[in-house]
């Protein structure tokens, strides 16, 4: 299985009275992430599935990945929480030949990356920028994956030019 761990793109700050979950992507965040998607496309990283958090900024980021998506998107609250057994069970229920993007939030994307690569949730070594992507391959178990690439959004945008 290949996993693309994606941190949501840049979002607007919360307006007065607006819940954090309702913060939309900013125009700049949308534009920059579209450039990231072009980079992923240039790398031929099309997707069999996109799992995403239900928070608006993750929903909108996942929607921008639609051009790369051959299969379906799935909303899951497990990506709006620290990585745990539910997320691993969800990933383990998928076909092992799939390439799956997970769109979520910090610090949980870093923790997920660390968990899958090292078996530990210590995440200081994997700081995701907004719109950043980690490309993993292997089994979705603690320590079961290896890192194939770690792309800050600027690098992906350059690849996509």
């Amino acid at each position, binding site marked *: 299985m290949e996993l693309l761990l994606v941190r949501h793109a840049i979002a607007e700050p919360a307006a007065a009275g607006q819940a954090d*979950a309702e913060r939309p992507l900013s125009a700049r965040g949308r534009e920059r992430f579209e450039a990231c998607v072009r980079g992923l496309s240039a790398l031929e990283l099309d997707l069999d599935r996109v799992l*995403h*958090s239900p928070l*608006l900024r993750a929903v909108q980021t996942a929607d921008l990945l639609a051009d790369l998506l051959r299969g379906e*998107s799935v*909303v899951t*609250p497990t990506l709006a929480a620290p990585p745990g057994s539910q997320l691993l069970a969800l990933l383990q229920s998928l076909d092992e030949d799939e390439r799956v993007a997970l769109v979520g939030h910090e610090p949980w994307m870093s923790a997920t990356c660390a968990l899958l690569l090292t078996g530990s949730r210590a995440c200081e070594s994997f700081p995701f920028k907004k719109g950043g992507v980690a490309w993993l391959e292997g089994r979705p178990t603690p320590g079961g994956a290896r890192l194939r690439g770690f792309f800050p959004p600027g690098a992906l945008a350059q690849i996509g030019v």
Partner: protein
Amino acid sequence: METTLRAPSGGIALDRWLDHLEEHLPIARQGDDPEGVHQVRAAAARLDVWLRLGGYCVLRPDLRWLRKGAGAVRDIDVLLARGVSPELEAMLRERLAGARPAMLACFSHPRTAGLLFALRCLPPLDREPARRALRGWTRRAQRRGRRVDFRAGALEELHGLRRHVRRLRFAREWLELPARKIKRAHDELGALNDLAVLLELSRACSSPITNGDALAIGAPAELVERSALQRVEALRAWSRCQREISAGA
């Protein structure tokens, strides 16, 4: 995770049908009133059209999954409500008992909770892009309608047209445009589809035919005749809604 109530704006908010969905999920879970399942599916279909009007690709598969999760129970509820022979009813009740746990598992799944939360976070749609989408759908539905042979065409063709009509109807409802005659066409095409399902089931349930005990709803020959009449009704309703379809799109 918390959401706030948004101030009203000129956009198209989905709250009404999202509220409707959330109100009817417990009724569907309880299982005493078939209307609960029907309303869950009706709300999910409208929310799907809302997402399409907004150009969203995500969340639509989740809504489709939810509708499908309740689909088998709804199909059986529809047939039972029509009144069928004791043999067919026994078969349907057995199927219903098998379908309900799968539906309940779907409703209790974290995916459903995530879907409801995500929908609640979505901002209202801008009207102009939604109207543009409707114009495109209108042209496509009209083209489709011209190709369909109501009297002799395959049921799949009519079922395809029904999907187009349903989308138009719900889109116009979201945009607060007249949709009364389109609703009628949708209903008539739906009734034709229900008859097709019943006919298929009647053929599968051989005992009422072999033992000569006619189905309360009608033996297959009668159902075939009723389907033919229903095709005429569907054609009539489709013809009558043409002016409404073209207006305001």
